[in-house]
């Protein structure tokens, strides 16, 4: 199935409480080489036809305006899987 994959991450400078909790749990189970965990979102936009460049440009806009909030998050990638 053709799809566009949008990945959103909390901004680097922000505390990511969920990532911090997971990191703490990993340390408790002995994974001490892992220094930090950050958790973001992967959002798939599905199509029943091949994805075009126009779709990709639109997905970039949707990513920046709706799927992420620029104050707290960054869109780190928008990719196509046809």
């Amino acid at each position, binding site marked *: 199935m053709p799809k566009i994959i949008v990945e959103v991450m909390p901004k680097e400078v922000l*505390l990511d*409480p*969920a990532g*911090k*909790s997971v990191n703490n749990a990993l340390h408790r189970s002995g994974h001490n080489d892992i220094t930090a965990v950050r958790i973001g979102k992967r959002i798939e936009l599905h199509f029943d036809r091949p994805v075009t460049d126009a779709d990709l440009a639109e997905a970039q806009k949707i990513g920046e305006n709706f799927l992420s*909030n620029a*104050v*707290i998050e960054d869109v780190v990638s928008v990719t196509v899987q046809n």
Partner: protein
Amino acid sequence: MTFKIGVVTFPGTLDDRDAQRAVRLAGGEAVALWHADENLHKVDAVVLPGGFSYGDYLRCGAIAAQAPVMDSIIKAANGGLPVLGICNGFQVLVESHLLPGGLIRNENQHFICRDQTLVVENIDTPWTNQFTQNQEIVIPLKNGEGGYIATEETLKRLEGEGLIAFRYKDVNPNGSMHDIAGLRNERGNVVGLMPHPEHAVEAGFGPDMPGTMRSGVDGLKFFTSVLNSLVNA
């Protein structure tokens, strides 16, 4: 003349009935507004109540900001309609770009529920005109994602233009930058805050006050303020 205050219900809204009750106790007529209906039914002001609209999917308030009723509210707010966003309603205002910044998970990662002291720092709005400048009030706070953040530039503007309407006193419960509990827009008609005035409107059901249990009614003044502003409009 009785003024009509609309209270919006989104799927997942929790405090709409409490907000309607607060409107009635203040002397107004509460009008239920529905997320899927863009008709504001000629209300004189709007309250966006607390809860978990659309399950807080994507981000708190993000999906609600796209609801049909919000198209009308954003337009009306830009035209001067008084709008109050409480808790999730504040998040909806931020996601609708009616107020700047964002709200993230509480710094200590806990859901916080407590009677919170605030300082009212701006009384030049339809929602705060019955307070005195720098009045300390106590109303309940209950949120998991109430940490206010904004860019340095935005914070500087908020401080410089006096747009911080409420600040946390004694305890900053959620890690909000500059102890920000609530904001107003430039025009003053749009106000948002994380704590819940609608839960402090009737003696016997409000926060504990010194010497008297559950007697706090500081929240009622938000609603009498807006009715007062409509009388004088």
